[in-house]
């Protein structure tokens, strides 16, 4: 901390100077105060003296005093009131510059008491005749909203702000748009911006006239609009494309965002679609001639664009070639994009470049370049041979980290092209001793195990690793275990001792549960049925995917909606790095009229055996094959001992019925002129249904039933009309089931799962509200991959975690897991620590929100503990209630 304490003498001196009669001396004193403030000295003691200088006609002095006020008003709220009068007076000044200055500064004084005094001057300034004052007042509404949102709503400032969007001055429009966009972000469901074709037209007109910054605000706001059809979308694109020639890179990127988003809606066979694609490439390339920091932002975005629409830049490979003097962050990003653009057409050039890079100085860059060569081999089959020989050349350099990196990628190449390049194994084995990084060691061990039959001294090689078994990292230990088992299955006669040794090391001397579990499985497998063991361990591996490091498609879509922003730089959704309610809303690309086709790379994930091989996704995918085959082929001969290991929720549990709460009376007959409604909610085959029992307790026949929902938290809406076919005669009861969709209008309710319903019949309209169990919204594909789960769990801040107790529940953990699964609460993994079972579970809501949970069950203790983590913590309570209901039912 750099926080000086100003000595009393200095303060005293300043005090005297501030109270001096001479204007110049006063001004100099205030300057000194500001200078001290800047470096972090505490000069708050001078508050009254500085505020006394405020009443001046010297504008420079006034601005300095204002600066001081903004800094210290919060620590001295009572004294800050002293300044109010001057502000109010200044807001009436004939000089528009002074009026604007006053309203600008007042908004920055974050003292609750002052805000009430601010309202009247602000109201006047919003309607000021001078545009400079209006544009400043527009921003002031956003400031006030940040301090006291309720006040802004009550005073009607939001409406005035909306009116400013139609202002004649483009800068006023731009600032109003910026302020409204920010306010709207903290009220995700309000219709504040109210974008419709008319207002969009106004914004597009203002776009041509306002400053570069204003253009950015407007384009960013436009990107949130959902055009009604492809024609509207095309006409907006046509009016946005000229912005691609702007000198300001941020204007260009924001325009690219709008185009990338709206392009989704255009039919692909449209001529205009092709024209637009062509127009996008040159401005993206031009961004690379900007200053390095902007280049970095541009490259991070291009990385996303290339994944979403590779066709745009496929001919522009050369511009991503690394320059000797590029900063390292630009180099690394360029390299990433080069690999994504690599294809058969340009592979020769790319390889020549990569080889060049592999001799550079920066270690990270060199490593990435070596890895890139391997990725090229996997991506472009024709180049594989050249890549392998390049890698061998690099291994010959004997530069330690180059060798290690090369071995890691060669392992992937083996996986992709089995039985083709194994001749190089000898060269690899020469470098065994120099490997000191876990990833490289693990890769080398994998190669030895996989090709044990071709390596004469495979047993010696593996044995040498075994000596320091306990000093190795988990990754290497797991790999060594698997490799030796493979070796044993291939050469059983000579290696019996070795396998015994590794199994006992793994099961008896290790306290790593993953290693122990894997050891036990192998042990039992080998002792029960060696034939099955062979089938399992030496099973054919699925091919590895060509592309690695791809961003998951739904995340990619979201990031495309955030082009130009920090989210696109971090490649993370805003909710991952922004605190509070902002950014919780997930943005989506609009759907084309047809269906959206996206290619999802199939990453098979390993549960037990391969789960901890991090780093190379390609390798992880390979090991995944083992456990996937295992339960099927081992079912019959397996003893009870293994059974419990596999008895996880995933895929094995019996399909149970989902939990449906009993029907309750929602609308008593007394309140509805004789109509009684009771009902419940159910999820059947992925469809949410509202099941109603209508009873006519009146004396006359009821007809013409209809139903409507108010806006609600998850956008529930009837998917069809209420099917009551025949009239309901007195004392008759009928059962109706109404399918629901989740695409209706959204508004946050209190409690979250509250639903307000209106039912109409020939007599009247009746209103009631009911609460649905949130489990109705748990979708069937809510099972998260294990690694994603781990990453997400870590990613969600701890303050979003809430813990609950479930009392008196007498299920064991497996039964609980099965029960939960029936309601789409999926168990990802189970761990047992000191008699306590921990179940890790994931849930996906119909609106795409993920909820992660950890359930702790202690044998013999009927009280469970559940911890719920979610990016939108407000759902936690509901989720808990629901889990409790499911478990106790």
């Amino acid at each position: 901390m750099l926080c000086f304490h100003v000595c009393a003498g200095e303060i005293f001196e300043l005090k005297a100077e501030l109270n001096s009669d001479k204007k110049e001396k006063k001004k100099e004193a205030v300057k000194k105060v500001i200078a001290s403030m800047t470096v972090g000295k505490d000069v708050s003691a001078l508050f009254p003296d500085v505020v006394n200088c405020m009443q001046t006609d010297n504008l420079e002095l006034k601005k300095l005093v204002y600066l001081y006020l903004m800094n210290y008003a919060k620590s001295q709220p009572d004294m800050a009131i002293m300044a109010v009068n001057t502000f109010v007076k200044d807001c009436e000044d004939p000089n528009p510059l002074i009026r604007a200055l006053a309203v600008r500064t007042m908004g920055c004084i974050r003292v609750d008491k002052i805000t009430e005094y601010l309202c009247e001057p602000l109201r006047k300034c919003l309607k000021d005749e001078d545009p400079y004052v209006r544009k400043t007042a527009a921003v002031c509404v956003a400031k006030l909203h940040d301090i006291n949102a309720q006040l802004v709503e009550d005073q009607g400032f939001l409406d005035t702000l909306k009116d400013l969007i139609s202002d004649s001055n483009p800068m006023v429009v731009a600032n109003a748009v910026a302020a409204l966009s920010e306010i709207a972000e903290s009220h995700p469901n309000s219709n504040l911006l109210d974008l419709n074709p008319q207002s969009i037209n106004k914004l597009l007109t203002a776009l041509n006239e306002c400053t570069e910054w204003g253009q950015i605000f407007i384009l960013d706001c436009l990107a949130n609009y959902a055009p009604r059809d492809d024609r509207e979308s095309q006409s907006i694109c046509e009016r946005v494309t000229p912005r691609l020639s702007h000198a300001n890179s941020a204007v260009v990127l924001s325009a690219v965002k709008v185009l990338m988003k709206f392009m989704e809606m255009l039919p692909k066979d449209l001529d205009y679609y092709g024209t637009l694609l062509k127009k996008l490439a040159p401005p993206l390339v031009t961004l690379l001639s900007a200053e390095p920091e902007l280049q970095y932002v541009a490259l991070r975005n291009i990385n996303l664009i290339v994944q979403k629409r590779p066709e745009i830049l496929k001919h522009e490979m050369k511009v991503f070639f690394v320059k000797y003097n590029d900063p390292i962050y630009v180099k690394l990003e360029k390299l990433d994009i080069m690999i994504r653009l690599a294809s058969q057409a340009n592979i020769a050039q790319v390889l020549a470049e990569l080889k060049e890079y592999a001799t550079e100085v920066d270690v990270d860059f060199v490593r990435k370049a070596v890895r890139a060569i391997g990725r090229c081999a996997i991506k472009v089959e024709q180049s594989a041979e050249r890549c392998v020989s390049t890698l061998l050349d690099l291994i010959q350099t004997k530069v330690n980290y180059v060798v290690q990196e090369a071995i890691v990628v060669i392992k992937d190449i083996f996986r992709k092209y089995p039985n083709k390049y194994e001749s190089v194994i000898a060269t690899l084995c020469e470098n065994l001793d120099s490997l000191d990084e876990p990833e490289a060691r693990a890769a080398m061990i994998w190669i030895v195990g996989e090709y044990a039959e071709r390596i004469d001294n495979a047993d010696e090689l593996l044995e040498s690793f075994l000596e320091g078994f306990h000093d190795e990292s988990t990754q290497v230990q797991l790999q060594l275990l698997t490799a030796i088992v493979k070796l044993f299955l291939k050469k059983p006669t000579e290696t019996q001792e070795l396998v015994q040794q590794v199994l006992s090391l793994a099961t008896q001397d290790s306290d790593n549960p993953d290693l122990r579990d894997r050891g036990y499985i192998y042990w039992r497998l080998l002792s029960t049925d060696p034939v099955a063991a062979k089938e399992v361990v030496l099973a054919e591996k699925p091919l590895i995917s060509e592309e690695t490091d791809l961003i998951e498609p739904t995340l990619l879509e979201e990031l495309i909606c955030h082009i130009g922003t920090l989210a696109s730089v971090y490649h993370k959704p805003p909710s991952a790095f922004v605190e509070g309610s902002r950014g919780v809303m997930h943005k989506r690309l609009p759907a084309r009229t047809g269906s959206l086709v996206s290619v999802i790379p199939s990453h098979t994930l390993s549960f037990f055996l391969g789960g901890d091989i991090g780093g190379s996704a390609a390798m992880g995918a390979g090991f995944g094959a083992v456990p996937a085959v295992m339960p099927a082929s081992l079912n019959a001969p397996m003893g009870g001992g293994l059974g419990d290991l596999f008895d996880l929720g995933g895929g094995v549990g019996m399909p149970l019925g989902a939990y449906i709460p009993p029907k309750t009376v929602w609308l008593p007959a007394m309140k509805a002129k004789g109509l009684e409604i009771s009902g419940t909610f159910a999820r059947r085959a992925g469809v949410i249904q509202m099941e109603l029992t209508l009873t006519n307790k009146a004396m006359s026949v009821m007809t013409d039933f209809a139903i409507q929902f108010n806006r609600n938290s998850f956008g529930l809406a009837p998917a069809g009309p209420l099917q009551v076919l025949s009239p309901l005669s007195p004392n008759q009861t009928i059962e109706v089931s109404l399918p629901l969709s989740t695409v209706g209008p959204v508004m946050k309710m209190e409690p979250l799962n509250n639903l307000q319903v209106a039912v109409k019949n020939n007599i009247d309209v009746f209103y009631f509200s009911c609460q649905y169990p949130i489990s109705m919204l748990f979708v069937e594909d809510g099972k998260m991959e294990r690694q994603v789960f781990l990453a997400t769990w870590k990613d969600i801040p701890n303050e979003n975690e809430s813990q609950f107790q479930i009392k008196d529940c007498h299920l064991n953990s497996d039964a609980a897991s099965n029960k939960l699964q029936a309601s789409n609460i999926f168990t990802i993994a189970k761990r047992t620590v000191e008699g306590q079972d921990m179940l890790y579970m994931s849930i996906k809501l119909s609106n795409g929100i993920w909820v992660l949970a950890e359930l702790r069950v202690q044998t013999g203790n009927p009280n469970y503990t559940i911890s719920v983590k979610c990016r939108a913590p407000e759902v936690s309570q509901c989720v808990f209630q629901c889990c409790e209901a499911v478990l106790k039912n």
Partner: protein
Amino acid sequence: MIGGLFIYNHKGEVLISRVYRDDIGRHAVDAFRVNVIHARQQVRSPVTNIARTSFFHVKRSNIWLAAVTKQNVNAAMVFEFLYKMCDVMAAYFGKISEENIKNNFVLIYELLDEILDFGYPQNSETGALKTFITQQGIKGQTKEEQSQITSQVTGQIGWRREGIKYRRNELFLDVLESVNLLMSPQGQVLSAHVSGRVVMKSYLSGMPECKFGMNDKIVIDKAGKGGVTDDVAKSTTGKQSIAIDDCTFNQCVRLSKFDSERSISFIPPDGEYELMRYRTTKDIILPFRVIPLVREVGRTKLEVKVVIKSNFKPSLLAQKIEVRIPTPLNTSGVQVICMKGKAKYKASENAIVWKIKRMAGMKESQISAEIELLPTNDKKKWARPPISMNFEVPFAPSGLKVRYLKVFESKLNYSDHDVIKWVRYIGRSGIYETRC
């Protein structure tokens, strides 16, 4: 939006600290100092996230500028703003140095108050700012002057004020190009492009409307196809036209007009400004060709021979030619022989620097050097950085030609013919490298 803006010296001491948002506290100032400035290593990313706070930073000589936020802001905009802020400061007090910042801190605070409001960038055109941020107070202004200022700051033509008068209407137009090349040792062009700028200095009265034309292929083809036989088309059909890959314009240019008609029309700012930037990749005239020959004679000696050939009209002269030949780190001695210019081995820069003052077109020159090396046991081979070149030539390597620049001012009594116009072409080397 931007939550705060800090300026530090190279030691990490705060020179300017302006906080716009409540979520940015004093600790943010220190966090950046500790994590970035004091880290004393190469910057691995210009955006740093520390404890959920994002710092955008740029460095100008010894000075760090950092914009801070906790929200998902428009990152490109923040950097553009930081650059703009450097421009504004430079326009007010010259070089951005610790001394200048300390001497002008009151002015900087005043500027920051004006060009960023609650973290939203506002009009930051120096032309407009200088009318009312003067460090002299605004007491003397009349009501008309005040409203003129506010309408200019918020208006459509925020970059130019009304009522400018010159006795002599004059225009200077510079076409500045930097030609970039990456060539393989065998003489194959790996990548080449020209990035050019059209920079203008205009001293024109009133609110003139300007129209700029160049030998852009699209415009000329269009004119040719349409069968237009005006003077312009005639005079240019003989000349070569160039294909422009992409161009960007100063905010004064009407972009929608360029998009629809490909004509460049604008009301210019007063004084110096950059009208446009462009990039070309086709048919570039590469002014120099470098032919390297490196031979390793044993483990302690290198022989280097480099030939440069100039490739343009013999009547033109290139200037300030400099060839930089990198040498290994374990160099112990160098002997150089060159036919023209001066060559020196600079141990501190690990390079032989060969300088030639002037060289006419279609000429050739050669340097040869013997480099003696100390024996080392370093396993890693020498990376052989590329040979780079610097030069200046009096033509545009892209082939761009200015066809016309017309000035119309209907309200004042001067016409296009009365304006004195100067055009100049300068081609410079950008990153002009040949691998060896």
